[in-house]
């Protein structure tokens, strides 16, 4: 690889490391795992970089996010048992709190905490479209490329994800 190729990579792809890390944080829900994912994804991106022809800043971002997303997917499959156990624990845990302290919800969680929690509880395929759309501002077409699904699927997943979030957030408010 010529050093000009390295420079092109550093100029086109590396500026999007924050976006990559944000996506990885939401997909893994863990700061250390997110770092591992971004590292692995960056190295993969560099190896495939010769095949990347885009020059617009947005293209570099969507391209890197697609690799982060796939790397996170692989990671997720590998840790599936562990991840499912964690989700199960969380449910048990929160149910326990509600039973033991009926007035706990009086100490209202801040809205952003409630949002964050609702996002973390979304299934992965809903969580990723929400982050890509609402935080990264990607178009449906870009999301369809990153997530590897048709545009129609992006649309219906976003719609269902938002409905779930609204339900989850209404519930927390009505509880109080």
């Amino acid at each position, binding site marked *: *690889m*010529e*050093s000009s*190729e*390295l420079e092109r*990579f*550093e100029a086109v792809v*590396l500026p999007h*490391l*924050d976006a*990559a*890390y*944000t996506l990885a*944080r939401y997909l893994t829900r863990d700061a250390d795992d*997110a*770092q*591992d994912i*971004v*590292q692995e994804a*960056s*190295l993969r991106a*560099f*190896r495939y970089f010769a095949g990347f022809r885009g020059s617009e800043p947005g293209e570099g971002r969507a391209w890197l996010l697609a690799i982060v997303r796939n790397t996170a997917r692989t990671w997720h499959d590998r840790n599936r048992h562990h991840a499912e156990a964690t989700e199960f624990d969380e449910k048990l845990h929160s149910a326990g709190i509600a039973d033991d302290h009926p007035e706990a919800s009086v100490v209202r969680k801040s*809205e*952003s905490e409630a*949002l*964050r929690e609702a*996002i973390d509880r979304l299934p992965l395929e809903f969580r990723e479209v*929400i*982050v890509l*759309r*609402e*935080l990264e501002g990607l*178009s*449906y077409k870009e999301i369809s490329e990153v997530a590897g699904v048709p545009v129609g699927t992006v*649309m*219906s997943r*976003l*719609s269902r994800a*938002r409905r779930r*979030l*609204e339900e989850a*957030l209404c519930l927390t408010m009505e509880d109080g």
Partner: protein
Amino acid sequence: MTHPTFVAQLDAYLDGELAAPDAGELEAHLRVCAECARVEQGRRRLSASLRAQLPRYQAPDILRARVRALVRGEASSMARRRSVPWRVLSVAASLMVVAVGSWQLALTRAGGDALADQVLASHVRSLMPGHLADVPSSDQHTVKPWFNGKLDFSPPVYDFAGRGFPLLGGRLDYVGGEPVAALVYGRRQHMINVFLWPAGRGPSTARAGEFTRQGYHVLHWTTPEYKYWVASDLGLPELRDFVRLVQQGDSAASAAPPAR
């Protein structure tokens, strides 16, 4: 169009993804359908909250440094795999140098180059997750004693946090098959590795100098007590500033009566 169709299209409409004629029809429907209008308001509120309140994370400096190091290391090894003819040429060139009788020069340069490569390899390896420091600490009085019993010398450890080069930790490393002390300092998102061992032994000597490989700089010098190698992707002027700080620290230490 019917009401369920409009509901299904509402998200695409709000995301600006609905074609103009459909969007026009939907807007007309929103004016007459209270239920759709209520859903629309809810969605707008949700999106606004998500955008305003969900954190966007900044990639930590250490992650940036590792990614840069990994990518540069990869670029370097790709280049090496492709440049075999180059190496043949450079071997031929050294043979010619030998032929004109500059034995010593050729050997010293080859030794320096090989050591610089090893130092660089150790530097890049240290940037892999979990490899940076065996004793991660910004406290020189924690890092220095950590080497007791691991090495038969006690490396000078400084903290230049006040000068913008904070100490990050230390670890045991190997250069040329010999155990050496490695000290890690930071500069913004860059990592600096300092390798040192006693002047009288360890991997054979090379002259003081600077080497550059794929965006990394490797600097070498010796003191009466130690052989020093420093590796980083930091810019050369700043790296030279850092080296001067270490050298000043060493000469201040040797001028003062032995501590402890």
